[in-house]
């Protein structure tokens, strides 16, 4: 009996040795590659490093791909069979991959998952990861735009700093009062650039007035474009709005050359550091009191390529990323795309107040698309914005032309 016991122990020991020797080696065979544009202070590389410390037997390799190359690199890699397992893709481009079967359908995995729960997400970000009612990814983070305003300038021009403009009429009125050419101050700053930034900034206004990208030449959209035209024609906004990105436009607000600015939470840190005045943030004004709200929605989504050899392991890594969503704001300065996570106070009163507005605005954020041909749709909208604002076409004509182009894309 004793001998038997010892031999059993010995056997177990031998087995343990074998397992001990082989288990890590086998586990190392599973390597999951992750691509994103995140650099050191953003989530992806940090989450990957933290995950590797857990020694789960899955090794994650990270590669940083610059934003401008991400889609092209990924497409090339996918078509030559070299795609990574996991990628973080800009949300309007998600459908491009999902519609062609390049992303793994995660619907069943998510249904079984105890970590990833679709009901936790804001509807906008979640919708951007879906294609034909199936889940092809999960939102990584989110952002949206709202109206920043300079409270000091409001006071100086006799406007109530605690009651920022709530409707389009009030917004134009405030912009007129705040514009001061002698002091180099424009009433409002935003971006109507001929790039995705222009679409990102314009769509919410059209959507608030009842338009959609499939139906862009409605009276509401014309009214929205006319609103923008008023800003430019009356020089309430700089003519360079047409060629300036959001970052540069908001820069003029920070330096006191614009009294209001339309921008997102990504500016908060810069504003806290740069702006030497009292400022606040309010929801995007609506066409008239009580009208439906809307906002645009930015930031990236996680997805797993359908070419992955280790879908289960990749999903586990994804689950880990999602489990760390509560660190998204505190550690990386991005807003989590989830309604169940309260954004922690930062101790900066201006920033905390602004965050509350952005989180509120997120409820109304709508994804661009989702449509696999989004870049073409977006270009049609950009062209319409620019030809109307430069006076080469009337707002109606410009949007009619955009509608025609979009119709051709939608088929």
């Amino acid at each position, binding site marked *: 009996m004793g001998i038997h016991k010892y031999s059993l122990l010995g056997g177990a020991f031998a087995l343990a040795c074998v397992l001990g020797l082989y288990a890590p080696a086998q586990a190392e065979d599973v390597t999951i590659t992750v691509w994103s544009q995140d650099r050191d202070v953003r989530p992806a590389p940090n989450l990957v490093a933290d995950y590797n410390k857990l020694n789960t037997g899955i090794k994650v390799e990270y590669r940083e791909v610059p934003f*401008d190359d991400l*889609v*092209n690199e990924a*497409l*090339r890699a*996918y*078509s*030559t069979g070299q795609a990574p397992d996991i990628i973080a893709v800009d949300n309007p481009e998600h459908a*491009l991959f999902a519609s*062609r079967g*390049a992303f793994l359908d995660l619907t069943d995995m998510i249904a079984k998952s105890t970590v990833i729960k679709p009901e936790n997400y804001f509807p906008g970000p979640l919708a951007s990861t879906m294609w034909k009612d199936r889940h092809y990814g999960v939102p990584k983070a989110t952002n949206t735009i709202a109206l920043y305003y300079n409270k000091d300038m409001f006071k100086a021009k006799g406007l109530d700093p605690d009651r920022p403009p709530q409707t389009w009429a009030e917004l134009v009125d405030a912009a007129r009062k705040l514009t001061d050419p002698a002091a*180099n101050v424009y009433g409002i700053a935003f971006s109507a*650039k*001929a*790039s995705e930034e222009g679409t990102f900034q314009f769509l919410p206004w059209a959507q608030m007035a009842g338009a959609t990208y499939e139906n862009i030449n409605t009276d509401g959209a014309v009214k929205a474009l006319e609103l923008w035209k008023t800003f430019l024609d009356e020089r309430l906004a*700089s*003519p*360079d*709005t*047409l*060629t*300036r990105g959001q970052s540069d436009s908001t820069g*003029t607000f920070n330096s006191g*050359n614009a009294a209001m600015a339309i921008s997102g939470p990504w500016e908060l840190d810069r504003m806290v550091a740069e702006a030497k005045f009292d400022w606040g943030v309010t929801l995007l004004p609506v066409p008239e009191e009580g009208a439906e709200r809307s906002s645009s929605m930015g930031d990236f989504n996680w997805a797993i390529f359908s070419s992955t050899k280790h879908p289960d392991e990749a999903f586990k890594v994804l689950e880990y990323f999602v489990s760390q969503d509560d660190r998204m704001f505190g550690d990386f300065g991005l807003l989590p795309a989830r309604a169940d996570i309260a954004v922690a106070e930062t101790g900066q009163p201006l920033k905390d107040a602004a965050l509350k507005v952005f989180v509120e605005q997120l409820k109304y954020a709508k994804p661009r698309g989702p449509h696999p041909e989004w*870049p*073409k749709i977006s*270009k049609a909208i950009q*062209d319409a914005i*620019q*030809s109307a*604002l*430069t006076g*080469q076409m009337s707002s109606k004509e410009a949007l009619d*032309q955009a509608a025609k182009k979009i119709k051709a894309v939608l088929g």
Partner: protein
Amino acid sequence: MKGILSSIVDGKGFDIALVALPLTFLVTLSGLPLIYNVLMSFQQVDLFSLGTFWRPFVGLKNYAELFAQPETWPIFANTAIFVVSSIVGQFLIGFGLALFFWTNFPGASWLRGLFLVSWVMPGLVVGAIWNWILSGDFGVLNFLLRESGLTNGNIFWRSDPNYSLWGVIVANIWFGTSFNMILLSVGLSAIPSDLYEAAELDGANAWQRFRTITLPMMRSSIGALMALGLIFTLQQFDLFAAITNGGPNNSSNVAQYWAWELSFRQYDFAKGATVSVIMIVFVILASIVYVRSTRHEVRR
């Protein structure tokens, strides 16, 4: 043909190797992509068929669609304006400077070297700097124009469709002038000075000497410069990306930027290739003109 044969027959083939090496290099690095590009313009290229070679052939459909787009002709017109104005501006200012430094005042060669600084700067840096200079509200250019009394309001160089293309042209002229100046300086210094001495003895004035000696002697330099200018201006992409993004409303869009935008922004690779093919045709036409115009010099 006989020469090639004899070199093979006599077993050396060294001259063939000399030709073959660069030729192989050219064919693999320039020829194949070029053919691939032309092929792509006749195919239906899809994002996901980008990695394969065999794709549905659609004939001239890409071309027909391209020319049906309202922005096509304005963009090609912009390209022509951009190329011609840039080359003329770069050449005239470059020639003026080259002649100026040719007078060889103290420190001339040193100053001339300094001018090259603009040429060695990366295009995106030049673009970023000009982006600030041309900025409507706070740009240096507007400040100078206003203070000197030439204008009384700000010109929105980047955002006014009447000026946007010219803003990029001004930046490009600045960018390319020093290169023109250096090449022309080399040409000028190659002219034997006794020609001028003889002409002066014969009583030719400065303008006559310039017209009858300098210009004819500079013919090949100028020809080469024009050909290079065409290539460089048609390659100019960075300034558009950095200053106007082709906007507003395509008023400063040119073929080379548009080709990139179609391929890598709208992922319409077939259309991007089509625009490139049209550009190639123009470059070939221009090079034929160039080769013909300098042919007699080659034979001389």
